[in-house]
Each structure stands twice: as structure tokens, then as C-alpha cells.
């Protein structure tokens, strides 16, 4: 029993989080201060929500490279749309903004699904090119200028200032748990429930495990593919809207080049690259671990130039441990 828990990937991530937490805590006590931890949680919100979508595509057996541009496209066009609406005197509630952004994201996701299931383009290539297409369409037809806090929809600004509970810190500023953390937890929980307990979610695992077997059992590959990419797009739209609200500025270049950071976090969390395996808990821990390390290296006195180096080593380390675990697990079950 203990052996089985130890061989779980989530156990590894959790113990690494604790290990690094203790190392950082000893090296610099500020790390363990409430402010720093609350800040870390807030920083994790964006990658955690994006990671849900990445995980779904990864479980279905493909690597998604378009999620950041889907997120940016939907969030940017939504905030642009509602900033114009607001200039005409209508205040829109935050829920509407989120829903519109998610809707646009799902639409863009269905384009990916069309490329993948109708034209049989490998997911990596299809999403790499669709990311470029979405980017071009956004810059050409929606706009490429920043939207500053003054023009941003009021409800997004309000959202970014909302704290769940707060208390004054020593400096006099208010410190508290940001409300977007709740949204992230909700997104993780819903993804978990959908992937674990619905037929659609299980079909994604089946598709990733073995496509032709899944088809023979009776799953419709086209439907499953559509579900995977619409869900991923929807989540990306949500993540984009929340991320833009959190920084209060819609900067179209903001997410550029973070695809692999999020994907790496998902993989460190135990999702198998060839599909068929992965859990939301693992992904959440993976995101927490990567952010914990990349945000706090500077606190323990490592110069920022070392960031990339350490990040690369972390990916290698996590995947090596996974490979070793996989072997040990196979040996364990063979023994049964």
C-alpha cells in the first residue's frame, strides 16, 4: 500500500514542493511569510487555468501550442468589445465578460479540431500554425494596441482589486487572498469532475490510450476530438480573461512565448506526453512546483540568469524520476 502511494506521481510532486519549501524557508525566512505565499498562489492562477486545457489535449494524445493565443485572442477581443460598449455608457457584469471570452475560445478551439480530425494534421503542427493564424487575425482585424486601465471594462478592474479576506501588512497596504484563486480552484475542480466522472471525459482518456481501440469500443473519434479542443479553447478563454483582469492591462504581447513553460508544468505533474494518462491533482501540483521554484529562486540569492538553467534541469529531473517510477510500478504489478 505504502509502496503504491510512493510510486504515485502526485506523491513525488508533493514531496518536491515540500522539499523546496523547506530549503527556501531555511535560506530565506521571508519565503514562508503569509504575503509571499498568498502572492505565489495569485501568480499560479493563470498557469493553473491554462494547464487544465493543456492537460486535456495532452491526455488525448497531442501537444497544444495554440492555447495562449486562443486565450489572448478571446480575452483581448472581449475586453476591446466591452470597452467600446462601456464607452457608450453600459456597464457589463464580469460574468458576461467571462462567458463571452469562453465562447470565443471554444469557437477557436473547434477550428483546431477541424484541422486535426478532418484533415488529419498532427496536433502539434495544426496548433502551431493555428496559433500563428489566430495571432495574425487578431493583429489585423481586432487591434494590436494596449488597452489601458482607464478604458478597460469597469467590472474587470473591480475583479482585480477584490480580496477574499484581507488585513493590513506592516507596510500599511492591504494583503489578502485574491479572488481569482477561487476561480482557478473551481476550474481545476470542474475539469477533474468532467474528466473523471463523465463519459465524454473518459472517452478522452480512451482516445489518448489507443485511438483505434477506442473507435472499436464505440467512441466517436470526431466527437471526442471536438470536445477536447472546444474544452481546451473554452478554458483558454477563461484563463485569458482572468489573466488580463488581474494585470488590469490588455497587452496583446503579454503571453508570448510561455507555451512551453505551462506545458512543462503539466508534464512535470505526471501527464503522459503520448496521452491516456494524467490527473488534475498532479497538474495543480506541477504548476505549484514550477512557479514556486521560478518565482523564488531570487529570494534565496540565485541570480536571475540561472532561472532558465534551473528550469531545464527541473524538467529533466522530473522526467527521469517519472521514467524510473514507471519501471518500478511495472515491476510492482508484475509481482502481484
Amino acid at each position: 500500500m505504502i509502496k503504491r502511494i510512493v510510486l504515485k506521481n502526485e506523491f513525488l510532486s508533493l514531496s518536491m514542493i515540500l522539499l523546496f519549501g523547506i530549503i527556501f524557508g531555511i535560506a530565506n525566512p521571508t519565503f514562508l511569510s503569509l504575503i509571499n505565499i498568498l502572492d505565489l498562489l495569485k501568480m499560479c492562477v493563470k498557469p493553473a487555468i491554462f494547464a487544465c486545457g493543456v492537460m486535456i489535449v495532452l491526455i488525448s494524445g497531442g501537444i497544444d501550442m495554440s492555447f495562449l493565443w486562443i486565450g489572448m485572442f478571446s480575452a483581448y477581443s472581449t475586453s476591446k468589445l466591452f470597452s467600446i460598449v462601456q464607452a457608450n455608457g453600459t456597464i457589463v457584469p464580469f460574468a458576461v465578460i467571462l462567458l463571452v471570452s469562453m465562447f470565443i475560445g471554444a469557437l477557436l478551439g473547434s477550428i483546431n479540431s477541424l484541422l486535426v480530425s478532418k484533415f488529419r494534421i498532427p496536433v502539434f503542427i495544426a496548433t502551431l500554425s493555428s496559433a500563428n493564424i489566430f495571432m495574425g487575425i487578431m493583429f489585423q482585424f481586432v487591434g494590436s494596441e494596449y488597452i489601458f486601465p482607464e478604458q478597460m471594462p469597469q467590472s474587470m478592474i473591480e475583479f482585480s482589486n477584490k480580496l477574499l479576506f484581507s488585513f493590513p501588512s506592516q507596510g500599511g497596504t492591504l494583503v489578502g487572498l485574491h479572488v481569482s484563486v477561487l476561480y482557478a480552484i473551481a476550474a481545476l475542480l470542474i475539469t477533474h469532475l468532467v474528466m473523471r466522472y463523465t463519459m465524454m471525459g473518459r472517452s478522452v482518456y480512451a482516445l489518448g490510450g489507443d485511438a483505434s481501440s477506442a473507435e472499436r469500443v464505440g467512441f466517436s473519434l470526431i466527437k471526442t476530438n471536438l470536445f477536447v479542443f472546444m474544452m481546451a479553447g473554452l478554458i483558454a478563454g477563461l484563463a485569458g480573461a482572468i489573466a488580463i483582469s488581474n494585470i488590469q492591462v490588455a497587452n496583446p504581447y503579454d503571453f508570448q512565448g510561455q507555451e512551453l513553460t505551462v506545458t512543462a508544468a503539466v508534464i512535470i505533474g505526471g501527464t503522459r506526453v503520448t496521452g491516456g494518462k494524467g490527473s488534475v491533482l498532479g497538474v495543480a501540483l506541477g504548476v505549484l512546483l514550477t512557479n514556486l521554484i521560478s518565482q523564488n529562486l531570487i529570494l534565496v540569492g540565485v541570480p536571475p540568469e540561472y532561472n532558465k538553467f534551473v528550469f531545464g534541469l527541473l524538467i529533466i529531473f522530473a522526467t527521469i524520476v517519472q521514467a524510473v517510477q514507471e519501471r518500478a510500478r511495472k515491476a510492482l504489478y508484475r509481482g502481484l
Partner: protein
Amino acid sequence: MRIIRKIDNKTLQLAVICVVLFTVMAFIRPKFTSSANIYSMMMQIGTSGLFAVCIAIVYLSRGIDLSIISIANLVGIICGVIFRTALNESSSDAEVTGVILLCVLIGIFIGMLCGFINGLLIAELGIFPILVTLATQNIFMGISMIITQGRAETDIPKSLIQFADSSILSIGDFRGIPIILLLFLAIYVSLSVIVHKTPFGFKLQWHGSNSRVSFFNAIDNKRVIYTTYILSGAVAAVGGLIITGRTGSAKADYGGNAVFQALLTCVLAGISPLGGRGKVYNLILSLMALQFLSTGFNMLRISPLIRDSLYGFLLVFSIIMEYLIEKRRVNMLNKKTMLTERMTASRYTRS
């Protein structure tokens, strides 16, 4: 009809695309055919082509190498450091040449070493290439960052810069063929021969199309992986030296979208990322097509972001075309044979 079928379908397609693009661009902008422009396009093909060759051989083995640009920059930076420490104002010409030659050797060695690390992780631990090279990309770039602390190495000897800018066969106005293009062509031709005419190339493609079958045919898969990534690293190192010579400096984050361009060039040339399919010699045509497109867009003053997005369209379009052609071919076959079901069942591919 039979003659057309005899020529590799993809080659013909690409040749048509190249000719069409060239004529259209020349028609819209007469400056496009000026000798200065052609010279600069040749220079650019020489640099971007090397990275495309790297990706092509790795693609054929059903892998991917995201770390090539980091390897190139690392090599450039290490050479920059050597130049800075070994040379000064008073060094003689012979000394400078010696140090440059030494740097070329060291650079290629470092490239091979980086490739060896990739191969080691992929072959021995069985980690997926995309993950390994993603990590090593960060590691190599991290090492460059640590060496330079984010600054550029600029002490590159003049003779190297002059060499990178030199050309042969210059006639009057026309500056001739740049030495960089010749270097690229040499590497490109020899790698095409290696991939398509030698036992190693055969093993590489076999491993790419089905590694289990190649294993049972007594092919040393591990050795194939090592050789592939070491080759890719060495070519990337040459690319790094060329970038250093052309720009006269080396920095950790040069060539941000070079990898994407290289991926695009390969897919456009019909080299499948699913391994084992495609012809390396088609690369030059897709390189030319993309170069015409990007230079043309520059001349038409279309912003680079739109250009990137058109690359995306082009990629999707070319794959869809290929799919439709393939479908038609299969349909034609179906009329003759009754193998429909077996073919469609085995053709469902994912990645």
C-alpha cells in the same frame, strides 16, 4: 501523365509554388529581381537552411530538436569568449586565423557534445524527444545566460566577419554567390546523400517509421538516435558560427523564431514529423519559397506579425492539399483494388 507521376509529387508542387511566387513578386516589385536583393536572399537561405536541415534529419527519425537555436547561440558565445581572451589589438594575422580555426573546431565539438546529451537522454532513458530538447533548450540557453549575464559578445575578429560576407564568382554589378550559401549547400548535399543513399540513412528512416520493426531487424536504435542528434547538434553549431560571423556578435537569445521557421520549412517540404517519410532534397525548394514570401512581404511593407500568420496559413494549406491529393490517390487505388478498409484503418495517425 506518366512522366508527371514519375517525378516526386512534392518536388513538382514545390517547384511550381517557387516559380509562381517568384514571378508574382517580380511583377509587383521590380526591385525584387535586383542583384542586391537576390544576394541578400541567398545569404538568408544559407543561414536559415542550416536549421531546417537539422530539423529535417531529426524529423525523419520521428523526433524533434527544439534546442538547435540554443546550441547555435551557445557555440557563438563560447567562441566569442575565446576570441575576447585569446586575441587583442596586437595579434598578428596568422594568430587570428589560427584562433578562428581552433574556434570552429571547438564550436563543432560543443555542438556535437550538446547533441550527444540530447541523444543520451532520449536513447538511454526513453524520454520523449520534445521533452528532452525542451529541457536542454532551457539548459543550453541558461548556460549562455550565465556566461554572458544577458549581454552580447562583440569581440569578433574582423577577418571572420569579412569571411562571412565574402562571395565568389562576382561579375560586375552582381556580387556573386555568398560563401555562406556555398557552405550551406555543401552540408545540405552531403546530408541528402547520407540520408537517402547510405545504410545509416536507411536505418534512420526505418527507425523513424517504426522503431519496433527496426529493432527486430537488428538495427541498433540507440546508435541511430545518438548519430541523429549529434549530427543535428554539429550542423546547428555551424549555424551558430555563421550567425556570429554575419552579425559580428553573439547573444543568448538570437533567432527566437528560427525553430518555428525550420519546422515550417520541413513540413512544407513534405518531411513528416511522424517519421520516415519525406525527401531531404526538397528542402531547398521550400526554403526558396519561404524566402521569396518573406522578402516579398518585407518589400510590400507588411508587418512581420502578419507574415508569421501567413506562414501559418501556408502550412495548413499545404498539408490540406497533400491530404486531398493523398485521398484522391487512395480513391483511385480503391477502384482497382478492394483494400479500402484496411488502408483507412491503418492510416489513422495521431501525434
